[in-house]
């Protein structure tokens, strides 16, 4: 049984890292923010595993929800897409 719990931990960490990579690489900032919130959420589950329920609650409420909300408001007032390279046809499907 312990192996299985370890599996969950590994999967969670993997998901978290993947979400972080996506959050950094996605050109659509809204998607990036969702990725960031996903990182926070998975991290808050990991906090539960690490016996820190207080931190997990705070991370979920403040780290994930509030900061994502603030990010989304900022995106609404600025621009949604990252324009890193020169705009080429089809740039919106690349990430």
């Amino acid at each position: 049984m312990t192996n299985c719990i370890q599996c969950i931990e590994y999967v969670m960490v993997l998901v978290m890292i993947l979400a972080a990579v996506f959050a950094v690489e996605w050109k659509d900032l809204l998607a990036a923010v969702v990725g960031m919130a996903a990182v926070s959420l998975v991290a808050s589950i990991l906090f539960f595993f690490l016996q820190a329920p207080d931190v997990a609650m705070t991370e979920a409420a403040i780290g994930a929800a509030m900061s994502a909300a603030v990010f989304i408001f900022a995106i609404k007032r600025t621009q949604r897409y990252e324009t890193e390279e020169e705009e080429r046809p089809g740039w919106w499907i690349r990430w």
Partner: protein
Amino acid sequence: MSISVYYFGAISLILIGLYAVLVKKNLLKILVGLSIMETGVNLLLISIGYIAGRSAPILSEGVGPNQAVDPIPQALVLTAIVIGVATTALALTVAINLYETYKTLNIEELRRLRG
């Protein structure tokens, strides 16, 4: 050298965030990177405080002082999370102000506009 999966996750988050801060050109992306970095640091602190086989530091029935994990890192992380969201909110505000002045969030372009 082998380290725990939690340490690995925490270090990865810090490095991914740092990568975004160093390489990305979009200000909001940089701030996303900073935010991810902070999450990584928090995870690192909590995993340092973890003690295998012990339960959460809430000493109600059945949990004695020798059966709980270290409460200090958890208190520190509570503080760090709040500080992180405060910084993020302020940074986004500054980004909004920048956008209203220069109509761009790309740092290269900002540099060019300022001359």
